[in-house]
């Protein structure tokens, strides 16, 4: 695209190299400082709301939105955190959400990767038709089938069970697509030897493909975990027993039922956000590296 390089007359001024190119200008420290400030600006915008939540968790219930405004708590006390942790429903909803999220993640990895392998490597009748059907489901907005899915789980007597949370979303075309892309790039030569040795297609999947699947599994696994942990609308439609309350559902009902306990609400929110932030930080390198693969080519 050389024609894109038809530049206007060079204008004098500070050149800020976008890529590491030759830096000839002496005002490097100035651009350096500007970049640092701009970076700081973005970091603050991104992280301030979360910091604000954690700080508010240390405030007494009247301090959170008090007039006159007060940035830090008068006394940093951990009462909100200890009180919310003493609430058995909070703890059980953290536990059951975590348990459900792990089940959901494992199920999602299993069913989606098996299908991905079949669509990437096996030759079978109706392959194209099934592939088109599977991919089409990707474009059905959740809202379109929200009510009829609800009718379905009602008919199947799944309401108010863990199954209603785990099963419906586990198969996801986008994940099949993503893992399949990865499998298509595994060289066939790797499995040919195994096939000749009589490994069989299952053996190839279990012993060659699965061990190489770390990169797509991290992305699909973390995405599944986050989706489950953060879901709110489906749980409020399908779960009514407090023993099965999902964490977002718990927080939302706490917010409406105990609206004066803002400090505790913020502490609970901070504790509920902590696991996902942790999961993300552990896998951030792989997730960030794979963003491009996920969305585009």
């Amino acid at each position, binding site marked *: 695209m050389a024609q*894109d*390089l038809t*530049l206007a007359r*060079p204008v004098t001024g500070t*050149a*800020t*190299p*976008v890529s590491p*190119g*030759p830096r000839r200008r002496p005002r490097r420290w100035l651009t350096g400082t500007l970049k640092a400030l*701009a*970076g700081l600006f*973005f*970091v603050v915008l991104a992280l301030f*709301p*979360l910091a*604000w*939540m954690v700080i508010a968790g240390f405030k007494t219930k009247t301090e*959170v*939105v008090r007039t006159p*405004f007060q940035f830090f708590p008068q006394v940093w006390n951990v009462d909100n955190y200890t009180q919310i942790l003493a609430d058995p429903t909070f703890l059980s909803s953290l536990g059951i959400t975590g348990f459900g999220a792990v089940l959901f993640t494992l199920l999602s990895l299993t*069913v989606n990767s*098996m299908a991905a392998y079949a669509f990437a490597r*096996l*030759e079978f*009748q109706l*392959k194209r038709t*099934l592939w088109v059907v*599977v991919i089409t*489901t990707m*474009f*059905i907005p959740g*809202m*379109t*089938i*929200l*009510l009829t*899915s609800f*009718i*379905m789980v009602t008919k*199947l007597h799944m309401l108010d069970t863990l199954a209603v949370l785990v*099963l419906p979303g586990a198969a996801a075309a986008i994940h099949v697509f993503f893992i399949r892309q990865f499998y*298509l790039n595994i060289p066939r030569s790797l499995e040919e030897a195994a096939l000749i040795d009589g490994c069989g*297609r*299952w053996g190839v*999947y279990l012993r060659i493909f699965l061990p190489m699947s770390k990169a797509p599994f991290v992305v699909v696994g973390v995405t599944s975990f986050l989706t489950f942990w*953060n879901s709110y*609308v489906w749980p409020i439609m399908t779960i009514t027993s407090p023993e099965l309350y999902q964490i977002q559902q718990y927080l*939302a009902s706490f917010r409406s039922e105990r609206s004066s306990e*803002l400090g505790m*609400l913020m502490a609970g*929110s901070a504790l*509920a*956000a902590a696991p*996902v932030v942790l999961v993300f*930080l552990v896998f*951030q390198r792989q997730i*960030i590296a794979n963003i491009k693969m996920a*969305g*585009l080519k």
Partner: protein
Amino acid sequence: MARRRPADDHVVAANKKRYPDTVMAYVMIAPIVILLGIFVIYPALQATVLSFYNWSFYQESEFVGLKNFTDVLTDPKFRASILLGLKFVAITLPVQLVGAFLFASLATAVNRRFADVLKVSIYIPTIISGVITSVIFTIIYDYSGGILNALLAKLDLTTQAWLGDPRLALVAIAAPAVWLGMGLTCLIMIAGMLDIPASFYESADVEGANWWQKTVYITIPQLKNILLYLIITGFVASIQQFELPLIMTNGGPMSSTELPNLFIFNHFRGDPYVGYSIAAALLLFVVLGSVSALIFRVLNSEKLVD
């Protein structure tokens, strides 16, 4: 296979050769086909059928033809919610794209360690739930004790009832929506920028081009596809936003935040007959589903055709 003619044996044998893995493949895809069939495909088909009926949980249903669709399309409230959705997109999408562009320009121009810190920080909000985001922004917006009004008061500006004022509530919902959506947009933009050959910038440097010129003549034209992708996926995601208004305002005040999906959801919850909301949801599917299918096809065309 009940009535098998002799000629079929030939076909079966030929198929066996052409499709050696059929049985095994069916075993492997059975789980997703069953799960998608029960929880996605059947409900989608049922929604299509029900949109022609006057269906309710408690009564015999009755065929009503296109009545649900005409009801939806002639309902000024539905049209108002679509317009509101477009307005919401018009507020969020430009901010998100311009912000992500500036962010990506910065992140590709600093050293690696700083870039990593920037990328991780900007992505963290993406993983926070809609409920928690709503809780946080509600206290930020609080009229008498929120930090936003405290800041305005310090600057001698008028304080506002952010979520209580029909003129401001949509903007007040847009801010957390951008906060949540920014991370992914930024990272995709960065990936796109890193794909632009460095030699383009080198020759621009030789000619003494400044940052602005390089942006206008190199970066933006080279990012054309990425920008198109981000605009379309951003549009589809943004117009479907409904958790934030559901929790923060429940569509109020005076329906000023009743975005299309929330409008449909509130009808689901409120109507005795579901035909209306299902018809509305289907119309949404036809429009948004085909838009996203189209962009997916354009971007991945060579992958869909084996």
